[in-house]
């Protein structure tokens, strides 16, 4: 059984199936599976109004190759991995996951490190945009950092 497990990279308009992603990327060469879920939080860092949902849009033509590049870079840095990286599009309600990253590795060190690397890289350079939708019906775009930086 190879430690280079499956890669599951994508954008999804449907709720994320976290358990299925974890099963898909783990093999019997893996002794550690780390899952990161980014979920819709009620409090905004920039706005006092309670958040009801996040709305995501993506440009798949640019976003998917960038996510695949992050998965390749994670393997270059941390060794052979199984990796799933799926981000929601559309409205994601309070408490629901908007992004799921699963890393399966032979040991926990590279699994934790690669998962942290992957979410940080995704937030900084994948062509996905987020609007906070407040309970009062208004909304505001929230930016992480410039693409490519």
């Amino acid at each position, binding site marked *: 059984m190879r430690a280079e497990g499956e890669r599951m990279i994508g954008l999804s308009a449907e709720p994320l199936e976290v358990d299925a992603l974890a099963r898909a990327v783990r093999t019997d060469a893996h002794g550690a599976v780390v899952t990161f879920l980014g979920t819709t939080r009620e409090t905004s860092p920039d706005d006092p109004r309670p958040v009801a949902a996040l709305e995501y849009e993506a440009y798949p*033509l640019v976003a998917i190759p960038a996510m695949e590049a992050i998965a390749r870079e994670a393997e270059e840095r941390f060794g052979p991995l199984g990796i799933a990286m799926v981000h929601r599009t559309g409205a994601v309600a309070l408490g629901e996951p908007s*992004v799921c990253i699963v890393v399966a590795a032979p040991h926990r060190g590279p699994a934790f490190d690669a998962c942290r690397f992957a979410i940080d890289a995704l937030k900084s350079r994948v062509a*996905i945009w987020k609007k906070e939708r407040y309970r009062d019906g208004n909304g505001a775009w929230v930016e992480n950092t410039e693409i490519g930086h």
Partner: protein
Amino acid sequence: MRVRVLAFARLRELLGSGTRDLELAEGANVEQVWALLAGGAPALAAFRASTRFARNGALVDAAARVHDGDEIALMPPVGGG
């Protein structure tokens, strides 16, 4: 020549539409695509410095030439996760 412009997030809202087909002179570059759109939507100007461009899926500078049938994307700073 004709190019298709895709605008995302805040830029899409300021333009009032995510997709525009533009007629341009041969030899035009991405900066001229931006200028043409900003001429009709002055609120765009404040976001020029933070906007990144893609041509047919590859990130390019504003000086990059555009060709008939190209898909040019206007991308504000990202906000995934």
